[in-house]
């Protein structure tokens, strides 16, 4: 598919993993360096850029008004979209979202939605008629592995950076006033992705490792350390043992990451 790894490189990565090492010197359970910047797109209601190693993801949040879903008339709406823009990787082609960008968007969405990160009840303007709609758009700018974790981190950071316009309802009309309020957040989910190479689990796979690994497992945790989303991806498989082992490892890593964030 992508720029194929040479067999020599493949072997190199596998051999190092056997010795519990990785090409960039990391241990099997280490994340790459993470840098987060918020508020860089002024025209968006919220934004954040995450650098996870060399993987770069920018998330912009736009808040608009709209109608609620019929089965949740008092709740605001969340919609997440992802674009794997062509300049991010030689393997990304222009065109409508493909299965990879759809999966990415839906996995990040699940983490945010199931953890009830956004207090959607507070987004209600007029019950059953008008609510705030939060658009989270994930823009992958450089693909160097583990787009899920980088995107999830950027999405939550962007939501924390999001401000909603103040408004008042006069004669059934919504009138925007001066000033803003921060988007009401109840939880701050963190997603941890593991890769499996020759029965060893590694945290935060980078691009070349992704080409060697036979399977991936992403898990999202809420503030209490409970699981709110899981996605096994790629071909390959995990044994029952590896799943439970992976869960404990991911939970640990999520807690570690959480400490690092100043949310």
């Amino acid at each position: 598919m992508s720029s194929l790894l040479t067999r020599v490189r493949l072997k190199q990565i596998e051999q190092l993993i056997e010795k519990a090492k990785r090409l960039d010197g990391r241990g099997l359970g280490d994340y790459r360096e993470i840098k987060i910047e918020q508020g860089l797109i002024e025209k968006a209601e919220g934004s954040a850029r995450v650098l996870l190693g060399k993987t770069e993801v920018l998330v912009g949040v736009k808040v608009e008004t709209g109608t609620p879903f019929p089965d949740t008339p008092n709740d605001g709406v969340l919609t997440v979209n992802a674009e794997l823009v062509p300049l991010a990787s030689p393997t990304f082609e222009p065109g409508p979202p493909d299965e990879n960008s759809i999966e990415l968007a839906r996995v990040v969405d699940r983490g945010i939605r199931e953890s009830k990160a956004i207090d959607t009840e507070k987004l209600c303007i007029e019950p059953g008629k008008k609510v705030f709609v939060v658009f989270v758009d994930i823009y992958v700018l450089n693909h160097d592995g583990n787009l899920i974790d980088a995107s999830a981190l950027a999405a939550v950071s962007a939501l924390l950076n999001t401000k909603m316009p103040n408004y008042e309802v006069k004669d059934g009309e919504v009138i925007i006033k001066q000033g803003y309020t921060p988007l009401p957040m109840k939880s701050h989910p963190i997603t941890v992705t593991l890769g499996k190479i020759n029965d060893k689990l590694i945290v935060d796979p980078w691009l070349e490792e992704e080409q060697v690994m036979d399977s991936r497992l992403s898990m999202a945790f809420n503030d209490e350390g409970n699981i709110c989303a899981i996605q096994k991806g790629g071909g390959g498989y995990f044994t029952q043992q590896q799943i439970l082992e992976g869960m404990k490892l991911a939970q640990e890593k999520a807690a570690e990451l959480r400490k690092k964030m100043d949310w």
Partner: protein
Amino acid sequence: MNEKPEKLINKKGLRLDGRKPDELRPVKIEVGILSNADGSAYIEHGKNKILAAAFGPREMHPKHLSLPDRMVLRCRYHMAPFSVEERKSPAPSRREIELSKVIRESLEPSVFVEYYPRTGVDIFIEVLQADGGTRCASITAASLALADAGIPMRDLVVACAAGKVDDTVVLDLFDTEDKVGSADVPLALMPNLNAVTLLQMDGILKPEEFEKAVNLAIEGCQKIYALQKEALKTKYMLIEQEEEVEE
């Protein structure tokens, strides 16, 4: 619109459809029911009615999608417009695209793809009626379709979901439980190799509850696997039985 039920498990510990927490819905499977497909299977799992077909191995069109050293699997999971309460548009939704991907990824590890370079096998899944757990039932049927097509496999793949309703971890959620419950964990398994090829989760589960759900789902898978084997054997035993009766 139906009213959302208050309690999903009653005082007797029975669910809305009368099942116990660890009880599977009834499953009926038939293999080789489509004459044009190389392999096919039909499954009824609870109220789910799903048809799966496999075409291949055959040369891929367009050719550039094929790989020089292995067979490529393509999978399309699609729901009929009349399969759900509110008519669904025939155009592929984002959910169907994601499911097509994860279903394909759940079946791939079971197939000896290295045997047939430069070819492809197309798997088509049509959900005729949906009632929760369609991706699992689809995988169970699609795996049989591949076996029915004579494609060499490491193992069959069987799938089942577990989840949480009220405060209980339960097996095999039906639609209402899926929508109103607090967690859903679909899982696919290669039963003889103890290899999990699909695992997803949405909702909120404590780690212990997740572990319980995984174990329960795997138990459910083993039960459905017995039915998969029976369906395959029934198809070929039938002729033998007819012969015995004649003599």
